């Protein structure tokens, strides 16, 4: 796919953060909204100068699914858990479970971010039970 075009101009600081062990998001200078994923316009108020910020990486599981029928490239990894995590700074993102039993993670569990190589070799945010 388009992996060779990543990072792109919107995402470069985010992926650079992952490489440095930082979970970066944006905060709107005009309305203070927490913004994820990174973009050039605040989706709440329309301001065009979102500032970069660093998350403490702590949050709660908002939704989770254990994938049994994986896409072909990940078939040998299944079953694995995919999470939506609400970070304490007020944004939501998808993440994988870095370690532990995928059947044990549950909605509401506290988790913290860690960084692991994703399928394309780039460090990406994953989560572990806090």
């Amino acid at each position, binding site marked *: 796919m*388009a992996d060779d075009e990543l990072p792109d101009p919107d995402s470069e600081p985010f992926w650079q953060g992952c490489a440095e062990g930082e979970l970066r998001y944006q905060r709107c200078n005009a309305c203070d909204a927490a913004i994820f*994923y990174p973009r050039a316009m605040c989706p709440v108020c329309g301001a065009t100068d979102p500032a970069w910020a660093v998350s403490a990486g702590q949050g709660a599981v*908002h*939704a989770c*699914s254990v994938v*049994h029928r994986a896409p072909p490239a990940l078939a040998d990894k299944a079953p694995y858990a995919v999470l939506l995590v609400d970070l304490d700074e007020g944004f939501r993102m*998808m993440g994988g479970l870095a370690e532990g039993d995928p059947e044990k993670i549950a909605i509401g569990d506290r988790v913290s971010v860690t960084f692991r190589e994703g399928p394309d070799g780039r460090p990406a945010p994953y989560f572990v039970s806090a």
Partner: protein
Amino acid sequence: MPARRVVPIHLTKAATLSLNKACAIAGVAESRLGAVPDATVLTLQAEALAGALADAGLEKADIDGLFVSGAWGRLPGLQIAEYLGIQPSYSDTTMVGGSSFEFHLGHAAAAIQASLCSVAAIVYGSTQRSRKDRYIFQIRSDLGYQYEAPYGLPTPVGAYALAASRHFAEYGTTSEQLADLAVSTREWARRNPKAYRREPMTRDEVLDSGWIATPLHRYDCCLFTDGGGAAIIVSPEIAKTLDKPPVWLLGQGESVSHAQISEMPDLTVTPAAVSGKRAFDMAGVTHDQLDVVEIYDSFTITVLLTLESLGFCKPGEGGAFLANGRTGPGGEFPLNTNGGGLSYCHPGQYGIFLIIEAVRQLRGECDERQVADAVLALVSGTGGVLSSNSTCILGLE
């Protein structure tokens, strides 16, 4: 600082526009369905269009508006017009997933009301089963998708599974309740000769069908078939000249809320909450007046969330609403009477088939699965990952 508007609300025309009886559906048809190895994506659209024109009693030369959706080829709106030999004076290639055709119906009504066209054809086809053009199932990693791609969520099923997980956790919804919808839908399919899966199915068979992505089992998921469909939409003046009873569009609303599941504002409320209210208001009807309801069933959870968002039951009550055969033949809430995407057909973007079935029910053409004396139907299409919804209310004169 909250989001700020400049335009005064009384100057926004969408607040006042009514499409009530702006157009009627004059003809509908499917192509061959199921596994159709000897057809291209264009063949099936030609088949469906020919059938819909015959059903309407109109000719291809009458068509001046063309509504197309798909991700095949390079420029589907041009390729299908060329193949069919149509030079439309009005074109719409809205692509918002499987609900695109319910969007088309509203857009066709508006175009006809504005005298931009008078005979509109909505066409769709897919050969995803036989020709493996599974474009919709590739994991993308560009633009916004780069933030989801590393985690291997199968698309679209994994996104619906995440929404289901949230509904289960918030409201205690169960796999048994979702399975009951799959069983009721199969019971309808058993009464539809065109349905792909017609053998009996039990709740336990659904629950034992294997996990795809928890909490969704294999039989919580739609079929993967070939197929095409078409509908002919005409102005009120033309509708009154045709042999078959016109099926009127009484109300329509549409809404889009996100593209990726991590961006969905509330995992248990779909854009049907917005589009449905608009459709009901425009039609001037209430929920209990509806005779038959056709709701996009890409997955069992799609139906549950859409029913709640449309206001057929309160948030959290969808599981009980669907359980124990309530929506099956003989049940008090006839739902997805053709057997749905779960058991009849699902060629990638299923929304055109919701319209086809609603029209046939209202005309009384459904034989063994006919809902008696149906005069008012609701069609609700959901596309993407609970991303887009258009809801249409249809009725006889």
